[in-house]
């Protein structure tokens, strides 16, 4: 068999290998959307029809009216947005100090910060709950945001990136009388855009997907994030209508899916990059 024939055959094989798994992989999402349009006896009919009988949006209306879905989404945006912003800022500052400045105790501080990456979140939840209770922060945005406003991983990632910038750049800028902070903002941050974006995406995804911690520290509906809200919504409505539950799920999962589809390139690069460096 000659080379190009083998390449062609490999491609055909690849398409065949992928087609069925792709259908399987896509099915749950497709099924969710189908279910969200099913009303009344349609939901529990057997044998089940995959497609709904009509595209009646009544389930969406019911879901929207029976729980503050917009509030869940808003809470998630606020929490994930602030966590990302704070992690990016604190990590840039700390990574800059560690990568480009000399001071006593630097090595040990760096090691301690890296060591925090080893501590799984589950290990810290009980003491953290007590700390927040003492601060009277339970069921507030502070509880959802502040404990995650710094990141050992972010510092480690940016530290590696900052170190690769040439020393001469800094010397020239400082010679011109620029202050350290101005140099950081005017040169280091723009030059490190790819690494910072990658980390921001990683941080946002992590914050958006949090489950255990928001479950523990939120008590009222108006503080719940999308992840927690959907669980509550389901336990309240599953006995009455799965169609409405699926409509609510669709509403809550749609924003991140659309965001992903439209920013796929940056998204994938961000995740891959933060993974490879970490």
């Amino acid at each position, binding site marked *: 068999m000659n080379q190009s024939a083998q390449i062609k055959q490999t491609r055909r094989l690849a398409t065949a290998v992928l087609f069925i798994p*792709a259908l399987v*992989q896509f099915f*749950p999402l497709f099924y969710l959307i189908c279910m969200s349009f099913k009303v009344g006896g349609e939901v529990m009919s*057997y044998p089940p029809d995959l497609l709904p009988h009509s595209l009646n949006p009544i389930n969406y209306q019911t879901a929207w009216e029976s729980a503050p879905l917009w509030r869940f989404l808003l809470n998630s945006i606020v929490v994930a947005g602030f966590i990302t912003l704070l992690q990016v800022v604190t990590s840039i500052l700390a990574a800059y*100090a560690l990568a480009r400045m000399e001071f006593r105790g630097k090595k040990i501080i760096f090691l301690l910060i890296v060591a925090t990456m080893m501590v799984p979140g589950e290990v810290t939840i009980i003491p953290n709950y007590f*700390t927040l209770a003492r601060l009277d922060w339970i069921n507030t945005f502070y509880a959802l945001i502040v404990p995650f406003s710094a990141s050992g991983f972010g510092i480690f990632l940016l530290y590696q990136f900052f170190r690769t910038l040439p020393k001469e750049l800094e010397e020239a800028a400082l010679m011109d009388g620029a202050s350290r902070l101005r140099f950081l903002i005017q040169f280091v941050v723009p030059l490190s855009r790819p690494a910072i974006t990658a980390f921001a995406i990683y941080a946002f995804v992590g914050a958006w997907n949090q*489950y255990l911690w928001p479950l523990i520290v939120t008590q009222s509906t108006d503080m719940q994030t999308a*992840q927690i809200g*959907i*669980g509550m919504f389901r336990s309240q409505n599953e006995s009455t209508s799965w169609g409405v539950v699926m409509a609510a799920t669709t509403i809550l999962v749609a924003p991140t899916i659309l965001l992903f589809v439209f920013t796929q390139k940056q998204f994938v690069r961000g995740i891959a990059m933060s993974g490879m460096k970490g």
Partner: protein
Amino acid sequence: MKAHPVLAWILLLPTLVILGVFVAYPAVNSIYLSLYEMEPFSGRSFFVGIENYRDLLTTASYWHTLRITLWFTLLTVIPSVVLSLIAALALDANPYCRGVLRTVFLLPVAISSAMAAMLWIFIYNPTAGYLNYIIDCFGGKGPNWLGDPHWALIGVVIATVWKEIGFNVIFFLAGLSSVPQELREASLMDGANRWQRFWHVVLPVLSPTVFFVMIVSVINSLQSFGQIHILTGGGPAGETTTLVYKLYRDGFQYFRTGYASAQAVGLFILILLATGVQFRLAKRKVHYG
């Protein structure tokens, strides 16, 4: 260059405060708490030494939970790594079907484990769910997936694998893009067949990625919570209660703080051990080019 110790410490301050208060202190404090037991109503605590640990290690239910966690980890990590490696190889080999097919495989990345559970929950419905309908079409009779102690863990595993594939494919595609084209072409000239090429050319270059994905997957699996909470709530009959789930229940539903803290320490040790063992194995197998 001049030293700027004061500015450096100012830049580090926010990080040190946050990581100190919310990571370092609680990590140490967990050990301290694990040596105490708290009275549920008065909130008074008293020193019990290693009693909580002895309690854990001598109750059958803890060992059972540990066994479930290890099974869950094994059953999610191996299929999700193997399947996503195959998917990534196929996606990488065919430049024409990248667009839509690639998006389909990566899509679960945009879906949290809680939402993934919501996507799967009705598929598992014993009377009207599609999974049992498909099994029925082939003449079988599907179980009550999430309600049957023998099947519930498998149900959670399938939904988890489905979700994990997205992330893994991203990493494998990134890793594959670093296999030099000349290397593959050279092996074609040598007349290597597809399997030989994968085994001797692609896999060695990809081995650091495989190792990385394995470590991350194992850690993620050991920490899984959202999908379990939504799909089964740890049941039926405790058959999907993992270590993290038990910790949550003992700590935040039964308020046995000391007992739960001992579990937190145990979980920490387990994750360190799992990572350490993998690093040990990787030393022999991973090829850093």
